[in-house]
């Protein structure tokens, strides 16, 4: 294969070893074909065109910001989930962990009548601990992360409901809207920002872009990024050359937990109360974002930008169906179909690139 980007690790060409004469000059297209994001990018463009045609309201500025908002709420989680997936693991507890994080903050702040920022910090510590538990269980038992996080998924889902009902007598947490610090926290986690007169976007969109940028920087430019690709591509090889595989994997689970904490804080400060049954099933949506974005299920390949495009596709479909005035029940069908198409396209693209060497 002549692609320089086959693992999504391509660097912009730097001065140094020049290309060899045996290396057929790569067309721009060929280079693009090797990127993990390509399939998702094409899909995003196609979907955008499609909804622009079938749904008149889709192109309005307000709709666009709604689409971006939907994309960001899933995209933030997809950042952590895609890194974990590149590192070769799954986290099925990611969906309910968002709810757990939100509940921890809301319940502790309300029950102890603390400043909500105290709840935010306690939630950060405990949610990171949850991620660490996932990671430690994985590292210690060597069981597939699929099984371990399936177990923690059910445990957390049960805890969310059980603890909330025990404390509030209700399935939702009490409102923290009138508590100290709510406004400043809301400003950080759930405010609207005026971009232009007509265009307001949610602050989560900016956080999302920031997280994607940081994740991309980590993956491509830092030592830890090298290790993430390595532990996903071949954990045994990584260990043999001295990569601290266990620490990298635990760190990745904690990365998911961090994203879950952030998403949870958004829930708390956007709605002031948290529904304890929420989040179930969302873990698959995050995985879908990552896979549509070109992450390989087997690990070692993918990109955070791809996962972001995946989340954008998700947002467009989610809201586009509404703007096209179709029955939203169809959304899940479309999502499944898109997942299938995306994986097949990725497969074909990769085979093409490999064969054309």
């Amino acid at each position, binding site marked *: 294969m002549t692609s320089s980007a086959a693992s999504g690790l391509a660097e912009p060409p730097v001065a140094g070893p020049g290309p060899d004469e045996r290396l057929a000059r790569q067309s721009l297209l060929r280079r693009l074909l090797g990127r993990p994001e390509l399939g998702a990018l094409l899909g995003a463009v196609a979907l955008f065109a499609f909804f622009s045609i079938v749904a008149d309201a889709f192109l309005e500025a307000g709709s666009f910001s709604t689409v971006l908002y939907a994309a960001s709420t899933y995209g933030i989680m997809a950042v952590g989930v895609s890194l974990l997936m590149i590192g070769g693991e799954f986290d099925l507890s990611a969906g309910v962990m968002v709810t757990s994080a939100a509940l921890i903050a809301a319940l502790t702040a309300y029950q102890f009548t603390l400043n909500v920022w105290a709840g935010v910090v306690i939630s950060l510590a405990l949610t990171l601990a949850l991620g660490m538990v996932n990671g430690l269980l994985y590292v210690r038992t060597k069981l597939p992360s699929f099984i371990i996080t399936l177990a923690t998924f059910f445990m957390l889902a049960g805890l969310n409901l059980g603890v909330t009902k025990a404390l509030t007598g209700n399935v939702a947490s009490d409102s923290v809207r009138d508590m100290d610090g709510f406004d400043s926290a809301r400003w950080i986690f759930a405010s609207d920002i005026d971009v232009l007169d007509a265009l307001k976007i949610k602050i989560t969109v900016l956080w999302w872009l920031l997280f994607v940028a940081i994740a991309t920087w980590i993956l491509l430019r*830092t030592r830890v990024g090298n290790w993430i690709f390595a532990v996903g591509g071949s954990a045994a090889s990584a260990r043999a050359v001295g990569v601290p595989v266990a620490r990298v994997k635990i760190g990745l689970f904690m990365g998911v937990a961090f994203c879950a904490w952030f998403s949870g804080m958004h829930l708390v400060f956007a709605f002031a109360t948290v529904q304890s049954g929420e989040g179930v099933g969302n873990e698959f949506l995050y995985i879908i974002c990552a896979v549509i974005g070109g992450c390989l299920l087997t690990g070692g390949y993918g990109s955070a930008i791809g996962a972001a495009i995946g989340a954008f596709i998700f947002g467009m479909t989610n809201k586009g169906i509404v703007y096209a005035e179709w029955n939203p029940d169809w959304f899940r069908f479309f999502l499944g179909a898109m997942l299938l198409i995306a994986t097949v396209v990725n497969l074909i693209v990769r085979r093409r690139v490999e064969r054309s060497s």
Partner: protein
Amino acid sequence: MTDTADTTGAAPEPGQPEPAMPLIRLTGVGKNYGNIIALRDVSLEASAGEVTCVLGDNGAGKSTLIKIVAGLHRHDTGTFEVQGEKVAFGSPREALDRGIATVYQDLAIVPLMPVWRNFFLGSEKRKGFGLMDIEFMRKTAHGEMAAMGIDLRDVDQPIGTLSGGERQCVAIARAVYFGAKALVLDEPTAALGVKQAGVVLRYIVQARERGLAVIFITHNPHHAYPVGDRFLILNRGQSIGYHAKAEITRDELTALMAGGRELEELAHELDTAGSSATAKQLTKEAKHLGLTDD
């Protein structure tokens, strides 16, 4: 066992161990996998500027032996000394920190990752803030490979797309580049064509001339003999011979490798078939050649 360890090249630098003390010494080492005895009472030395060859058939315990040296497994019995100090490594990192670099049979590479990322994996060069010096690493990977006579097309190429010999050379160049004092190679020539095997063998000689202690595992006596200074022959987890080059000819080495096993097996077969006279004769022959262990 051997006494003819003439240390060629590499005058010992001050502070280095004297030539009399081998860099690596295994004495009576054994290893079990559960109830499988993979290695029993094996001794071996490797000194700077020498190539120690470990020969044996499939399953003889060669990989097990070097996994102990590399820090992937701990030995169960016997002693393992590095520069005269007893050690039992808990991880490959500890072995690496002692200057023991291993090129595994499966090469310990990540196929999907570019050559330069593999080259520096686990020992990335940094500029600060955890930021990698990517330009330096790409240039160095290319330069080191060129120095080995391998002109890489593209250091961004996934390493899985290189030929077997090229991959082998990346792994060796990586070990040498990171200042290994001892280089352990597990069957580096097994999957290679004649010419590529030649390239790897030449590189082993180069490493020796640079003053490294090399442990070279192979099941091919024709690859081992030209480059080796000492030869350890394993069979079913046990040593059936440990010789300096001066003590053994290529033919004897080949006979020890192939003949020893075949004669023994044949003797066993005949034994069970009842023709004990012939079996005894063969066993005697094998003993005469010094092939059996008792």
